C-alpha cells in the first residue's frame, strides 16, 4: 500500500520535473530560465529523499542537505550576473 503511494508521489514529482524542464527550454527570457532552474533544484531535493526512501538508506540524505544549503547560491550568481553586479 505504502509502496503504491510512493509510486504515485514519484509520478507526480516526475511530471512537475518535466513541466519545469519545459519552462527551462521555452524561456523566453533568461530570468524565466533561472526561475525554472531554481524550481528544478528544489524538486531535486524531493527526488533524492524519494530515492533514499526506496533504497532505505539514511546516508543519501546528506546529499539532499548539501542541495538545501547550496542550491540557492547558483541562482544568486546568475541573478547578480543579470543585474550586472558581477
Amino acid at each position: 500500500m505504502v509502496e503504491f503511494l510512493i509510486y504515485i508521489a514519484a509520478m507526480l514529482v516526475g511530471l512537475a520535473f518535466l513541466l519545469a524542464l519545459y519552462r527551462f527550454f521555452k524561456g523566453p527570457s533568461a530570468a524565466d530560465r533561472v526561475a525554472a532552474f531554481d524550481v528544478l533544484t528544489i524538486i531535486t531535493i524531493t527526488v533524492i529523499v524519494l530515492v533514499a526512501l526506496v533504497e532505505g538508506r539514511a546516508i543519501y540524505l546528506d546529499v539532499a542537505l548539501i542541495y538545501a544549503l547550496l542550491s540557492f547560491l547558483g541562482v544568486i550568481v546568475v541573478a547578480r550576473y543579470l543585474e550586472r553586479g558581477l
Partner: protein
Amino acid sequence: MSLLLTAMTLVLCIAMIVAAFVAILGKSLPIAILAAGLVSLVASVLFVILASPDVAMTEAAIGSGLSTFLFFFVLGRVRGGERDGEDEPGSEHG
C-alpha cells in the same frame, strides 16, 4: 521498486540529453552555461540512483555549484565577447 528507479533514470537521462543540446546549440552564452549546470545537477541525481552518494555529493558541491560560478565570473568580465564566433552574415568562416 527497481521499476521506479528505472523510470526515474529514464526521465533524468532524457532531461540530461536535452539540457546538453541546449548547452551546445542554445542561442545565448549565459543560457548555455546554465544548461551545463543543469546537466551537472541531473548527473548528481543519477549518481545517487546509481548508489554512489560520494560522487553525487562532489558533483552537487562542485559541478552544479562552483564551476557555474567560475563561468559567470569570467563571463561577467568579458561581456563584450559573448557573441563572438557565431555565424552571422558577414563574418568569415574558419
